[in-house]
């Protein structure tokens, strides 16, 4: 083991005056201790703890004779060296009377070897996981951690603000879980940091830890990013480790100057103390609950994997999954002090481990044991559940002992070590499993047929056995026994995929299922009414109305499944503001409200970036430089930044408000002119001027920051929000502060659309952008040279496009009287669209045209129309751009049109409806 070599080198070179070297020693010892704990080698752990204690004494100058102490540390380390050395030497070939012991040692040694590699890699930060760690497991871990990191951060912020036990406990729980998981995955640097921070939490007043915990969280973020392949490297953990140790020591040193420095408590002791007072129900309910649910999930999973294994003993993937499940259960059970479960899973794991290492071979009787173990485990987990829910004492399972004995007996069975089962023995006499199952009476023919159908239809790529298992009452073991007779050993499924997971309220799902039930009822009512010729129309109308209602509700509900709350995004912002304020030495009060507002998942993901930009601006530039400046302006010294989310008129509004300096329109205008973004003498409203900060060219920091205080990356903000079909408004008053209002649609998927016809084709215009629809009575369209057409609307001229020309549509008319004009608006520009007719209003589900059509100008997507055809959705922005590039710079200069200009006749909604009614009925 390389680490111990390094350690002994380091201790020889160490000088008691060189604190850094001592810290280094301390952290190295930590690694060895973990290793020792991992291998249940108490001797090693104890020696390390001794050495650690001594080291701490030296570090905190708590001794008159540091030299002597260092000597003792050195001695301890050489003991360690010999301990570890002998451990390595205990070879598998050593003669021992007890077979089991040798076998156990063999396993241990193999584990050691694997771990040795990992240890070395762990210190150097592995780029790749060791082979024996399951990649999927790791991926899940990462996914989970990235989510939980947010919670962790929220907890730290809570701690900073409230300093109550609830938050401290939350933090402890998080760190402890992380420690366990990282140990399992052999991410030793994370583990050691967790350990030391846990220690700090138990000894140092928590509020003093906020800063370092934030740093720890950030470091974890980097580390997870690194493992997820998003980063090249991670800063070493030593720095943090040192800071933690120093904090702990500082407190202890002050506390117990006269006494010996307290021993760093081993986490095992801690957790067992915690539970030994038999109060593991209190405070741990949530954990226990999670454990129960997870275990049941794991156990269900195992059944399927075991069936897989049953068909093919050499299926390592299946074996690994089973092993993993037991391993996980063992880990959590150990932490929760469910000793029976932990011990039992340890034994099963041991058995499986040997099979994995090929020192032991699977046969049918072992398969039986594994099946029985799974069943027993289920029972035991259930017992925990009963104990938890009913508050009764945990029942001990009496089947436990006999099964453990069977495992032991099987492990002692020397014959196994040489017995190599032949997989091909029964190969060839293939009997259909369905028939077998029917014969053996586990399932009836209908079940088999159904399963077969499902398999054939390609809806499921599962094996027959798995299907039957899901569909019938037959237990996994029963099916396995049947499968044994079939054993073809040729089928092999690929590994399972890891897909994105979304947490959904069970309540929402229940409601959805309820509505679907109603849908089924209405469906049958409709078909019944159709069969019943009498009274057809009146009945039908009612049903259709109900059907319409249910469909709408279903649609709303299904979109609500994708809704997630803004809480985590808001929390991130809170942290951001806090950090920014610290960095720029400003004192800021951050207020947020409406963080429970829900938004489509994609939107929540996209909105984060713009918000970051906006807050950065608000803190860096929005707020006055110093409290004095603020007081001079008659404001409280503490700056105030507000983040608000709420519903308004079918939209979600997110507001970012600061009470800083505000923006100076004159300055922005001058800058914009200077940069050539707008021509000189432009006559713009204040709102338009503020809008200029979103112009891409405008956003360079050195231009505006000092005076107006805005303009970093604001074009990015705008672009992101545009992509969500939202809009952003600014309200700002010089000297008083600014307010950014982001308005987002509730969902990305569904819009209200206006269906229009042009020739044989149909297009959809988002109703949101439609201002007016009307028929021209007389020609008030004017042509300006060759450049394009305009229509007079009130006192203004609006550019007009004829859809048939833009899209080359055949069979579309030019007649003024037969066509309609639709006035649409995008931001502050208007456009008149000339087309044949208006078909109706329609809610449509937006479908992307796919990557290949990605950026076709003037089409933003498509939707399925009621007749089953595809309608294209017009992109008003794109259409406007095309108009602007072709002409219409000189909007103001257009001469008043000829006489006979009439006010166009407006058509209200009634006309639209009657028109659409004409077409549909």
């Amino acid at each position, binding site marked *: 083991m390389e680490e111990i070599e390094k350690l002994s080198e380091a201790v020889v070179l160490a000088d008691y005056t060189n604190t850094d070297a001592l810290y280094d020693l301390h952290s190295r010892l930590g690694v060895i201790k973990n290793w020792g704990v991992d291998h249940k080698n108490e001797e090693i752990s104890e020696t390390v703890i001794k050495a650690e204690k001594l080291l701490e004494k030296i570090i905190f100058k708590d001794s008159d004779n540091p030299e002597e102490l260092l000597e003792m540390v050195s001695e301890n380390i050489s003991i360690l060296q010999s301990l570890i050395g002998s451990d390595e030497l205990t070879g598998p070939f050593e003669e021992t009377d007890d077979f089991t012991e040798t076998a156990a040692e063999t396993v241990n040694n193999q584990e050691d070897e694997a771990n040795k590699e990992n240890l070395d890699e762990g210190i150097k930060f592995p780029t790749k996981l060791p082979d024996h760690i399951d990649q999927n497991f790791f991926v899940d871990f990462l996914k989970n951690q990235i989510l939980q990191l947010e919670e962790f951060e929220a907890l730290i912020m809570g701690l900073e603000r409230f300093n109550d036990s609830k938050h401290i406990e939350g933090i402890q729980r998080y760190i402890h879980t992380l420690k366990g998981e990282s140990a399992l995955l052999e991410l030793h640097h994370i583990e050691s940091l967790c350990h030391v921070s846990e220690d700090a939490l138990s000894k140092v007043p928590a509020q003093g830890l906020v800063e370092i915990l934030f740093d720890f969280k950030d470091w974890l973020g980097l580390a997870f990013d690194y493992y997820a392949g998003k980063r090249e490297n991670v800063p070493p953990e030593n720095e943090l480790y040192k800071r933690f140790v120093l904090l702990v020591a500082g407190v202890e040193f002050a506390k117990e100057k006269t006494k010996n420095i307290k021993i760093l408590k081993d986490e095992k002791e801690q957790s067992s103390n915690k539970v030994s007072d038999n109060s593991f129900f209190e405070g741990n309910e949530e954990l226990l609950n999670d454990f129960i649910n997870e275990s049941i999930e794991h156990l269900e999973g195992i059944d399927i994997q075991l069936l897989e294994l049953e068909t093919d003993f050499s299926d390592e993937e299946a074996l690994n999954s089973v092993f993993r499940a037991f391993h996980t259960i063992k880990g959590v059970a150990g932490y929760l002090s469910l000793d029976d479960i932990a011990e039992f899973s340890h034994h099963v794991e041991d058995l499986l481990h040997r099979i994995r290492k090929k020192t032991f071979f699977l046969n049918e009787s072992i398969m039986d044991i594994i099946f029985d173990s799974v069943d027993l485990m289920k029972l035991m987990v259930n017992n925990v559940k009963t104990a938890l829910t009913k508050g009764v004492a945990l029942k001990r399972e009496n089947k436990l002992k006999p099964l453990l004995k069977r495992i032991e007996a099987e492990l002692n069975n020397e014959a196994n070590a040489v017995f190599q089962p032949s997989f091909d023995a029964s190969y060839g006499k293939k009997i259909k499993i369905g028939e077998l199952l029917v014969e053996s009476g586990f399932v009836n023919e209908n079940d088999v047929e159904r399963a077969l159908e499902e398999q054939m239809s390609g809806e499921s790529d599962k094996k027959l056995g798995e299907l039957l298992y899901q569909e019938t009452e037959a237990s996994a073991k029963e099916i396995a026994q049947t499968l044994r007779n079939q054993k073809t050993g040729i089928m092999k499924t690929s590994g399972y995929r890891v897909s994105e997971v979304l947490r959904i309220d069970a309540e929402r799902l229940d409601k959805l299922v309820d509505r679907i039930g109603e849908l089924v009822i209405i469906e049958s009512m409709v078909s019944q009414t159709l069969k019943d010729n009498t009274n057809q129309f009146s009945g039908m109308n009612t049903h259709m109305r109900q059907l319409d209602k249910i469909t709408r509700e279903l649609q709303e509900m299904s979109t609500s499944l994708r809704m997630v709350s803004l809480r985590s995004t808001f929390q991130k912002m809170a942290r951001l503001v806090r950090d920014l304020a610290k960095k720029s030495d400003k004192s800021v009060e951050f207020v947020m409200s409406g963080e429970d507002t829900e938004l489509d998942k994609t939107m929540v993901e996209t909105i984060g970036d713009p918000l970051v930009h906006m807050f950065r601006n608000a803190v860096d530039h929005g707020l006055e430089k110093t409290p004095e400046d603020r007081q001079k302006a008659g404001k409280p010294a503490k700056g105030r930044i507000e983040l608000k989310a709420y519903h308004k008129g079918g939209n979600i509004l997110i507001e970012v408000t600061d009470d800083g300096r505000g923006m100076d329109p004159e300055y922005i205008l001058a800058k914009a002119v200077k940069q050539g973004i707008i021509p000189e003498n432009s006559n713009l409203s204040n709102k338009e001027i503020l809008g200029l900060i979103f112009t891409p060219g405008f956003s360079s920091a050195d231009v505006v920051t000092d005076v107006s205080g805005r303009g970093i990356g604001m074009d990015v903000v705008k672009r992101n929000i545009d992509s969500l079909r939202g809009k952003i408004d600014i309200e700002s008053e010089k000297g008083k502060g600014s307010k950014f209002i982001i308005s987002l649609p509730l969902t990305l998927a569904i819009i209200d659309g206006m269906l229009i016809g042009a020739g044989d084709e149909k297009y959809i215009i988002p109703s949101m952008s439609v201002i007016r629809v009307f028929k021209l009575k007389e020609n008030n369209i004017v042509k300006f040279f060759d450049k394009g057409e305009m229509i007079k609307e009130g006192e203004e001229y609006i550019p007009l496009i004829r859809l048939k020309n833009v899209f*080359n549509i055949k069979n579309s008319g030019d007649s003024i009287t037969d066509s309609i004009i639709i006035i649409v608006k995008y931001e502050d520009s208007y456009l008149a669209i000339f087309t044949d007719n208006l078909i109706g209003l329609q809610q449509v589900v937006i*479908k992307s*045209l*796919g*990557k290949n059509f990605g*950026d076709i100008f*003037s*089409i933003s997507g498509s939707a399925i129309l009621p007749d089953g055809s*595809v309608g294209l959705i017009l992109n008003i922005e794109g259409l406007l751009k095309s108009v602007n590039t072709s002409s219409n710079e000189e909007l103001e200069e257009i001469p008043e049109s000829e006489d006979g200009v009439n006010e166009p006749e407006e058509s209200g909604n009634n006309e639209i409806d009657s028109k659409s009614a004409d077409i549909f009925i």
Partner: protein
Amino acid sequence: MDMVSESVNDEFSIAAKPGKYLIFFLDKELYGIEIMLVQEIIGIMQVTRVPKTPDYMRGVINLRGKVIPLIDIRIKFGLEKKEDAKKTCIIVVQINIKGENSTIGIIVDEVSEVINISRENIQPPPSVGMTVDTSIITGLGKTDENVIMLLDVNSIFNKDDFVSLREQG
């Protein structure tokens, strides 16, 4: 089944893999697409034209709620335009365009059958004398009566001109 392609002789390296091919007609000529790429075959249906796209882009269709683009492969191959007939159908293929998995419909005159083409029946594509662009033909498959042009669908759609249609308009 061995799916690794090997060169039959030293001069030509044949990209076409032996295996099952879906055979279809264009102007009496036979073409083959690897069956693994084919998702389904459907009859011609109502097509929505997408303005401002190249002419071989027939438009989009509603495939059970999914909107997929439709390629008129005759035009793409430089063959004459032809009215849809009774036997005209759409082969729906799953392809990979510049790293993105896409579903695309290809309009063909007629679908014939699925046949197995073994390695020894695959020859390198001729470099001259073809009615269509030969770079997308990965090999010639021989059966008793016919010669089948084996197409690499992925490469058809990965040519720059195809992808660039998104910049058009």
